[in-house]
């Protein structure tokens, strides 16, 4: 089977003189869960943000289900698409942030319904029953009418996952979804993500949770200094650890 959902080709990103991404290429199969690891500053966040055009790559391209993200082809060059078009493309890619970023003035249910109603144009009733289903899936149905500030970090993150899922994305990106959580709240979020993976969602997860990677991800890539330096099964990346940097990093995390 060679059903590629997301493909990054030779992505580079430069901030001033800093080359933060240095020719990153990655293909992700439908239904696959890929863990991205690497030391702080390796470019993991920048990479993920290029995958939904929150950040414009300096060069290279991203394809979602074969469609070029953010640009259109004109003769011998690419032109950035109109903002509205890019917004449409972003529906296909869900993103979960380290700091949750729930809309603070909306209830849990409103958070999950906002984009389906406003962006997809679903009628409220449909959007509502779908939102309730999703909140059920992430175990937050009982808090549907709570405000974000009344929830624990783990609960907020599960709502954020439901909110992203409500757009029916083809791929879900997670940027260190448990790094801001108290240790005892980490497992409930990981459990939710494991369930998603089991349901066949395609996921790219930046995480330092080795246990989660081992059990859930079929594949891991290791980034360092803006490059992917290891790519294989999680065991490969761990066991091989041919790369001194990988060994060093794992020594710190394990």
């Amino acid at each position, binding site marked *: 089977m060679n059903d590629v959902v997301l493909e990054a080709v030779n992505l580079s990103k430069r901030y001033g003189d800093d080359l933060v991404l240095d020719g990153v290429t990655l293909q992700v199969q439908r239904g696959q869960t890929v863990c991205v690891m690497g030391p702080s500053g390796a470019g993991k966040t920048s990479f993920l943000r290029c995958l*939904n055009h*929150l950040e414009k790559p300096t060069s290279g391209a991203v394809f979602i289900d074969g469609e070029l993200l953010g640009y259109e082809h004109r003769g011998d060059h690419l032109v950035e698409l109109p*903002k*509205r078009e890019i*917004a*449409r*493309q*972003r*529906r296909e*890619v*869900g*993103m979960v*942030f380290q*700091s*949750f*970023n*729930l*809309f*603070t*003035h*909306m*209830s849990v*249910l*409103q958070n999950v319904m*906002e*984009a389906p109603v*406003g*962006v997809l144009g679903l009628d409220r009733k449909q959007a509502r029953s779908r939102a309730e289903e999703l909140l059920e899936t992430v175990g937050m149905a009982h808090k*549907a*009418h*709570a*405000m974000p500030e009344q929830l624990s970090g783990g609960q907020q993150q599960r709502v*954020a996952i439901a*909110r*992203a899922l409500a*757009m029916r994305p083809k791929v879900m990106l997670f940027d260190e979804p448990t790094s801001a959580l108290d240790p005892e709240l980490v497992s409930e979020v990981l459990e939710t993500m494991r369930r998603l993976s089991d349901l066949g969602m395609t996921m790219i997860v930046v995480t330092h949770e080795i246990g989660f990677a081992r059990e859930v991800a079929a594949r891991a890539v290791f980034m360092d200094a803006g490059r992917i330096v290891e790519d294989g099964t999680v065991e490969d990346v761990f066991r091989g650890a041919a790369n001194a940097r990988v060994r060093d990093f794992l020594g710190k995390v394990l």
Partner: protein
Amino acid sequence: MRPSDPSALAEDDPVPSPTSEPARHGRMVELAGLPIRQRGGHRREIIAVAVLAVLALAVWSVVSNEALQWDIVGRYMLDIRILNGVWVTIGLTAASMAVGLVLAVIVALMRLSGNWALRQAALLFVWFFRSTPVLVLLIITFNLSLFYPTLTIGIPGGPTLISGETHTLISPFMAAVLAFALNEAAYSAEILRSSITAVSTGQWEAGTALGMTRARIYRRVVLPQALRIAIPPLGNDTINMLKGTSLVAFIAVFDLMYTAQSIYQLTYEVVPLLVVVTLWYIVLVTVLSAVQSLLERRLRGRSRKLGNAARVVAGGKPA
């Protein structure tokens, strides 16, 4: 070791305390059972009484002051001319604030736009109207006909919609609204801009990642949160403007202040009329403050209440 250090003294104590362990514990239980009283006895009550006494004295000295001529104050409080003036003051403030806020939103969004020219234009607007005295602005708008004798509103190169002599088109009231609105827009634009930037970038990113457009994120996510932050300073500005509109005396618009002036210039009842004016401003500011705190509470609790309403509609159990 400093001799003033109490722990040092205790350590150096040559005779160890003879109390036995059970006795010590008994004493602790006894202490734990004692009630707790406010420290400093009745200090709080004494201060309260003193403050109230001073306040009562102040009020009495005002109320009992013959010079204020309360009988005349009472006669003018509901005088039809004064009431008209009150309405003009309210109308001026409401219209100027409304026009000012609409302009302010536009200027604030321009200042935050990605377009350099728009940003500079907004900056220029704020700079100019914050540095021009309102009184000068007022006199300019009132005398607009000196600068632009005729006004024409229409489509450039197309049909003319309205055209006429400036002084017939713009009444003194409109001139005042224009001046106050421009001034207010410059200040409110800054309030709105800082409130908008105070909303975390995470909110923008979350909206963007969900495929929302910039306009939608502004409308649904950022402005509602920014407004919550902006209400207290905007309320302050409104109260300021309410009293500031008394400058229209210079262009002979009969607001509360100018009405009172024109009466006491004939009757010489200066002091009682100034008291009437003050009392009316107090009433109006009190109402405005109440509206402000109502708005603040509404905006803070709105989403929660909506949440409750949604629960009721869903037939769920209230928490």
